[in-house]
Structures are given as structure tokens and as C-alpha cells.
């Protein structure tokens, strides 16, 4: 595998080699955490898979809030592309408000760019309020907004006064930061400043959690909620899949935060802990083993014998229900290898589910992760800030004197920590940060994993090369893949993809047979 890394890097000329060599590793020991370069600028022209700050803020974090009218302030494209394309499923609550199937944009024209777009934005909010009476409007800025100097926060403040609603402006222009990651951070800041802590709806039960960094792609969040509910654990709010402004307001009243996607939401987890004292626990509900472990950790955190017993009952029941299916899928999949590039924790999470199915991950990486997502949070103090990162606001929160409450976990459970992806990977695995098209093709060709999990931009080139490709951002429009039922769906979808009959038809028969001298029908063979 080290050989594959070197061969890949050898293809680069000196300058690119120098840049890329620190982003591509071949793990030399099990459980080790070599240093990786991450969260730095993508080099122009390399065909990075990355998106932009707007995509991280609107597309990932705030877009899924179902009762919020999210207005994209800018020309039409950005709003259009992020309209209904991410599979963050949502069902309306009692208020009936579900904006998820809508796209709102100020559709800026040339005159708005020249003379400023604030008036149009204000008018757009007026129109949205008149048409839909939302409780909350969020404004997401696209590239030109910062350049022409529109003050979206000021517009939001005026709209709040005028309409008596909550309005929040996000300066998430596409050029900020180096990837989607900047947008996550900006969204986290806005939600923390203006939403979380503004409600007072207390949880109904003793064991209450927020699920952070769960976007309900394909219904993943619903499967997690189903399991948690069976265990007797109340879900106060979800950030942000099928989440709502209404629930989020009271998120600070939950007893514990559980974190799925570390990258996109760790800021809020940290800030809630600092301000309100709520602990957070990194969990993984992808994979049977890891779902069981995560549930047990939550049980351990609360330390309640009844809860712990209930969790064990649920685990026993749920695992028994899927045992036969999983055994069958293992028989079809064991020994296969995988490459995975997805999300802000998914490349880590799915390795666990793949292991459940007897598969090994040989290549992994992220588009927009930071070093702590690869190496673990213990490296955070050593991460050097560069100019691009400094441009992203870091807000500081302080202890809320009245509402701060630090719970003492009943056992020695470690909270506020995440070990990162690399420690769990085998020796020889290849890690690639900010992967590009060239590297994707080279690795698919050289290492030949049986399945390549990434996104739509790579899917068809990988598939054309004869390697099974599954979209891990959208689950190829299937799912859920989380929890117990999700594991079965995932196994079945992999079997479908690997065993599709058409794979055997790729080569036409005339490519295998020599040109024979003969005549039709003289071979004595029957086609019947």
C-alpha cells in the first residue's frame, strides 16, 4: 500500500508533490496517529471534491431546519443547487410548517450587485412573512454579498423588529475558509448566539439528549430516535436533520449531547458545555457493534440501573431481529475491501459497519475534515492556524451563571473527547485528505477496492472503471443506514451493487472469442 501512495505521488510535479505529500499517508503501524495535513487550501485546478462555505452553512447545517424559511441571498444558482438535493428528510410538527421542499432566493440581478441587495432582501423577507408567516427566517449569503457589502445581520435585525419574528443572517460567502467546514462553523456560531438557550421547554424525562450532527439523510435520524425511545431516552432536539427552530431553542435543557458528525457540529457541543455545563459524548450509530457500544456508553453516562437494563434488553431484542439477515450479508460480503470518502465523521463511522459485514477499509479520507477528525482531539492544541482559518469567526461563550449545571457522570466515562479515524485503521491503509479526481482514479485503478464509497462527482468515473461505487452522501437514494435496521439496508444495498447481473455483461462476447472460420448454425449448438 505504501507503494501505491508513492506511485501516486510520483506522478506529481515538484510543487504539487510538496503540497500533496503531507495530505496522503500510508499507515505504518496499527493504532498510530501520524500527522496529516488537513483543512488547508485546495490547490487551484486539481479538481478537488470540495464544496464551499455556503454549502456547509446552508446546505448542511441550517437548511434542514424544517420550520425555518431559509432565504439564499444571491444570484439564483446556489439556492437552486441546494434545493431538495441532500435528502435531509423532514416531517412537519403540529404547526404544519415544513419548508424543506421549498427553495427561497433573492435571485439577485445586475442592478442589485451594482446598487446593493439589502432592499431586495428586506422585500424578500416581507414577502416570505406575508406568504408563510414563519417564526424564523435565516439568510444565507453567497459570494457577491460580502463583496458588495450587504449587511445581512442588519437586515435581519430590522426584519425582527418589523415582523416580530426571529431573523438570523449568516455571512457564509462561498469564498470563506477553504471548504464546507467554514460554513459549518459559521452556522454553529449563529445557532448558538441566537437560537439555543432562547426557549424554556423542559424535557419530560430524566434521560434526555440532543443528537448533534445528525442530518437525517435517508431517515438515519429517525432510526436513531426509534432506538433511543425504546431505551427510554428522550430526544430533545436534533441538529439538524428533521430538526426545528422550535426544538433547538430549548436544546440547552437536555441532560446530554450526543455527537454523530464531529466536524460539522463539534463547535456547538463545546459551546453548550462551556455555557450550560452539558457534557457531550461522541457516538456512532452506524454499524451494529458501534450502535450497541454507543447505547451502552449513554447508559453508563446516566448510570441508572433501570436504564442500563432496558438498554441491554433493547440491544438483545434488536440484534436478535437482524441476526439472520446480517449473517447472510456477511456470507456474501466478507473479505471484500472498501475505500471511503464521506462526511465529517462518516468515513470513520462506516468502517465499523463494514467490519460488521466482514469487510476491510483500505483507503479512507475526507473532503473537509480537520486534523482532529483524523488524529483525535488531543492534537487540537497543536494545530497551527493559518490566514484562511483566522478569517472564520470564533465566538467565545462564558458560563451562564443561572443556567449552568454540571452533571457528574456516575462512572469513569470519558466525555468531550474523540479519538479520530486513523487509530482504528489497519496498518498499510491509505489516508487521503482533500482528495481530488486524479487521486480517486489512480487509487481506484491501483488498489482496486471492491467498493468505492464517495459522492456523485466521482461515482460514474469509478463505476465506468468497473469498480462498484456507492454514494455515501446520498446513500444512492436509499437508506436509512443507521442503527439496527439501517445495517440490514446497507448490507442488502451492497449485495445488490456487487452482485448485479449486468456486471458480467460488460465485455462483449466477441472480445473473448477468436474470430472463427465457420458458418452460422454449423456448430450444432442450440440456443433453446
Amino acid at each position, binding site marked *: 500500500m505504501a507503494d501505491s501512495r508513492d506511485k501516486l505521488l510520483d506522478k506529481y510535479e515538484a510543487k504539487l508533490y510538496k503540497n500533496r505529500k503531507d495530505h496522503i499517508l500510508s499507515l505504518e503501524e496499527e493504532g498510530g496517529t501520524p500527522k496529516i495535513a488537513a483543512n488547508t487550501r485546495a490547490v487551484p485546478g*486539481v479538481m478537488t*471534491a470540495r464544496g464551499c462555505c455556503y454549502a456547509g452553512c446552508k446546505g448542511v447545517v441550517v437548511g434542514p431546519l424544517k420550520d425555518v424559511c431559509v432565504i439564499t441571498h444571491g444570484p439564483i444558482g446556489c439556492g437552486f443547487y441546494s434545493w431538495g438535493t441532500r435528502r435531509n428528510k423532514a416531517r412537519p410538527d403540529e404547526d404544519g410548517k415544513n419548508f424543506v421542499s421549498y427553495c427561497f432566493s433573492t435571485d439577485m440581478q445586475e442592478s442589485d450587485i451594482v446598487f446593493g441587495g439589502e432592499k431586495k432582501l428586506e422585500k424578500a423577507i416581507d414577502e416570505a412573512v406575508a406568504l408563510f408567516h414563519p417564526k424564523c427566517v435565516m439568510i444565507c449569503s453567497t459570494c457577491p454579498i460580502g463583496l458588495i457589502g450587504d449587511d445581512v445581520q442588519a437586515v435581519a435585525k430590522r426584519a425582527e423588529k418589523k415582523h416580530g419574528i426571529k431573523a438570523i443572517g449568516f455571512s457564509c460567502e*462561498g469564498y470563506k475558509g477553504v471548504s464546507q467546514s467554514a460554513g459549518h462553523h459559521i452556522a454553529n456560531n449563529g445557532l448558538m448566539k441566537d437560537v439555543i438557550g432562547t426557549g424554556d421547554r423542559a424535557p419530560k424525562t430524566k434521560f434526555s439528549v440532543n443528537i448533534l450532527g445528525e442530518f437525517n439523510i435517508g431517515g438515519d435520524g429517525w432510526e436513531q430516535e426509534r432506538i433511543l425511545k425504546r431505551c427510554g431516552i428522550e430526544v430533545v432536539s436534533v441538529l439538524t436533520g428533521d430538526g426545528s427552530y422550535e426544538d433547538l431553542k430549548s436544546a440547552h435543557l437536555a441532560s446530554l449531547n450526543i455527537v454523530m458528525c464531529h466536524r460539522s457540529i463539534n463547535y456547538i457541543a463545546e459551546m453548550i458545555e462551556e455555557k450550560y455545563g452539558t457534557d457531550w459524548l461522541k457516538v456512532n450509530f452506524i454499524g451494529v457493534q458501534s450502535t450497541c457500544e454507543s447505547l451502552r456508553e449513554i447508559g453508563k453516562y446516566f448510570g441508572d440501573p433501570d436504564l442500563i437494563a432496558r438498554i441491554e434488553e433493547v440491544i438483545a431484542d434488536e440484534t436478535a431481529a437482524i441476526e439472520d439477515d446480517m449473517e447472510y450479508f456477511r456470507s456474501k460480503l466478507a473479505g471484500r475491501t472498501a475505500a471511503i470518502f464521506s462526511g465529517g465523521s462518516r468515513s470513520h463511522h462506516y468502517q465499523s459497519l463494514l467490519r460488521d459485514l466482514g469487510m476491510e477499509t483500505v483507503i479512507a479520507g475526507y473532503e473537509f475534515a480537520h486534523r482532529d477528525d483524523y488524529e483525535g482531539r488531543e492534537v487540537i492544541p497543536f494545530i497551527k492556524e493559518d490566514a484562511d482559518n483566522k478569517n472564520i469567526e470564533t465566538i467565545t461563550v462564558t458560563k451562564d451563571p443561572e443556567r449552568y449545571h454540571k452533571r457528574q457522570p456516575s462512572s469513569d466515562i470519558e466525555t468531550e473527547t474523540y479519538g479520530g479515524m486513523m487509530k482504528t485503521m489497519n496498518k498499510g491503509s491509505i489516508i487521503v485528505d482533500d482528495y481530488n479526481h486524479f487521486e480517486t482514479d489512480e487509487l481506484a485503478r491501483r488498489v482496486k477496492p471492491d467498493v468505492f464509497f464517495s459522492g456523485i462527482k466521482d461515482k460514474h468515473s469509478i463505476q465506468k472503471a468497473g469498480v462498484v461505487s456507492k454514494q455515501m452522501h446520498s446513500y444512492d437514494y436509499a437508506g436509512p443506514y443507521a442503527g439496527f435496521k439501517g445495517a440490514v439496508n446497507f448490507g442488502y444495498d451492497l449485495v445488490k451493487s456487487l452482485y448485479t447481473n449486468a456486471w458480467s455483461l460488460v465485455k462483449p462476447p466477441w472480445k473473448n472469442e477468436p474470430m472463427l472460420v465457420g458458418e452460422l448454425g454449423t456448430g450444432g449448438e442450440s440456443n433453446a
Partner: protein
Amino acid sequence: MLDLTPKEVMARTALRINPCKTCQPVGALFCALGVRKCMPHSHGSQGCVSYHRTVLSRHFKEPAIAASSSFTEGASVFGGRSNLTTAVKNIFDMYNPDIIAVHTTCLSETIGDDLNSYIADLKIPEGKKVVHCNTPSYAGSHIMGFSNMMTGFMSYLTKKTGASNGKTAIFPGWANPGDIRQLKKICSLMNVPIIMFPDHTGVMDAPMTGKYEFYPEGGTTIPEIASLGDCKGVVALGEIASLAPAEMMKKKWEVPFVMLPQPIGVSFTDQFVMALRLVSKTEVPWELEEQRGQLVDLMIDAHQWVYGKKVAIFGDPDTVEGLTSLALEMGLVPKYVITGTPKEEFTKKINRLFSKYSVTDCKAKANSDLFELHQWIKNEPVDLLIGTTYGKQIAKAEDIPFVRAGFPVLDRYGGPLMPIFGYEGGIRMAEKIIGALMDREDRDCADEDLEIVM
């Protein structure tokens, strides 16, 4: 579905809801994919190209390659010259295209990056090309971006040698590979040698061979684009996309052009065939006449299930014009016809079609959106929807049969391989439309009314 959409229509001047268009750069990128060994390049922040490649891959179910200048905050303040210079070097080093087709974005347009001077200062490897066009996202729509990229290629590459190449240029407008194959087939039957520009066949409908070709053997070649100035004439299809490029060829090289609608339905395909007949001076072969006859036969056979049914048609202006003509030929009433592209020519053209077929009480509108269309439908319903994927929301909300056509269709497979152009494309569309309406009859009728023969 879309439960928050009120029936009462309120005039909006600022809020676009559920758009029926997207931005210029994706059109430029798509156009450039129809050129052989071309790397499209987006001069802006990297999210643009990520979105554009994504929507194109989701429509065509094919790779859609393109690179980005990956603007950061610094580049946005100081200009993107060094980003472009680095990008061009890396693209030639890593991906070795014959040509890079740069388009701008709202970002680089807003800061006023001067692509002419940046490109003039580039070190371009021997035999390679870099071209560009301006595609400010805040003007027009993706259709203009497509058109602008065509003129970008042509202003850099075309020449006139003085000797005619004996060919006719065909500008297909925004079309699927299945449509372009149909155009080529008709031209071949009519014995007209052509240069198709752009040409997405072989690229956006590449076969499965087990080997990924980064640059598939498709697309208009650079020499072909260069020799457009030596063509006998241009047959430009779809005025909104193809008129500007055709006019440019006329102005620059005095190549005459004929401006026709995209050949969708009988009479628009007739116009295309008649134009080719003028070029080749040969009679229309039986094969085409036979296809035409089959399409008309199908329309007459099935007329009673279609006649007088109301349809709403939406999407890109040139495609929608053709679909409206086909719908009218079939006896449908195109109650609402909209595009998001802000071009008033569209409205005029559609109104002319309404007059031609003497249908009244029908509405055509450019610069509209699907929210407005939905509200109209709530006030006066239709029997059928024809348009892009996003129509499925309205179709579900209002329980209306839905036929997909145009760009983008993100939720079905195989569409880009199939034509809506030509008589054969007409047969395909007519079959889909008739089927959708008749399936609804079957679904809704009482058991005793379920007909075995229809």
C-alpha cells in the same frame, strides 16, 4: 407536499420561490463538455463547480469533469490572477486536455477580474488552447451561459480560410445526447455533411466498457470549431440559446444562418428537414417521411384520449417552445407555459403558437417560477404536467400525471440517451404523454369502467 403554498396569488417582486432556471456558469460548463478533450474551468470559489458537476452528473448519470480556481478570501480581495495561472498549469500537468474553457462566476465578475488580460499573460504549452467567456450568474440564466460559452469558443478559435469546407454547422441548443444523435441521423439521411457544435454524444452518454476514459471520443473537435467560419451556413436551433452564436458567425465571417426552433413535434421537425433540403437539394428520403407518417398516425390514433386535455409545460425556453408545439399538434391545450429564463421573446413565441392553434385562455410567462405555476394550477387545474424533475412536487401535491422532459431530470434513468427531437423523438414523447393520460383514466375509473381495449 408543498402544503404551505397558498391558493391566493400575491404579487412578488423580490422573493424567488422554487426557481425554473439556474445560473449561467453551469450552462458554460455543460457547453464545454461538448468539446473534445476540453477541461471546463470555473473561475470562482470551488463550491460553484462542485454544484455544477453534481447537477450535470445527476442528470446524465455520467462523469462531468471541471476544475476550479478555488478562490479564497484573499483572492476575492486581490483578484484571481494567480489562482487562474496556477490552475491552468496544474490542469495541463495533471489532466492534459487540448483546451481549457474558462468561464467566470458571480464572484469573479463582481470583483471585475479581467480574463482577457489574465489569459493573454498565461504560459500555455505548445499546441494547447485556453479560451474564456463571461458568465455573470446574476444575469439571464444557464441558457445564456451555454450560449456565451459557444461564442467564447468561437471568438477564440474560428477562422476563415476562404475555401468552403462544404459543411453546414448545426447549433443544437441545450440538448441531450439522444437529441443530438437524432439530429445527426436526420442530417445523414438528408445527405448534409455537418459540424455539430457543441456535441455531447459520446461524452455525456458514454458506454460502459470497464475502462474509464477521462476524455471520451466524443465532442466537437478544435479543428471543427476552427472551421465553422468556412461553413456554407448555420442551422441554429432554439433562438434563446443559439441566436447569439449564429449572429456572431454571420457578423464575424459572413456565414449565413437560418434560425429555427428546436425540432420537437411534427411542424418544427418539418422546418428542420425543409432547411436541410434546401442545403442538400435532395428529396426527403422515405425513411424520414415514414417516421413522420408514423408520428402523425399515432397522434390521430390516440386523439380521443388527449384532445382538449389541459397541460402545464415548464422548463428551458427553447425546449418548452418545442414541447408546446408538440402538445398543440396532439390537441392538448397548453394552459400554462412558463420558463424561469428572463427572456420576453419566449412569451411572444408561445403566444404566437396559441394564436396559430386558436387556443384561448392560456398563459405564457418568462421569468416565472414553479411556485407561481403551482398557484395558477391551484386556481385552475390542469390534466397533465410536462417539465423537469422539480415538477414532481406539484404533480404529487395536486395529483397530476407528470411527463419528464428538459433539464434537469434528476430522478429517472435513461432519458438523456433518448430523443425528444425529430419525428422519432416526437413518437417517444407522444407515447409518454398518451400513456400518462391513459394510465390516469385506468387508475381513476370505477371497476366496471376499466376498459380492456382502449
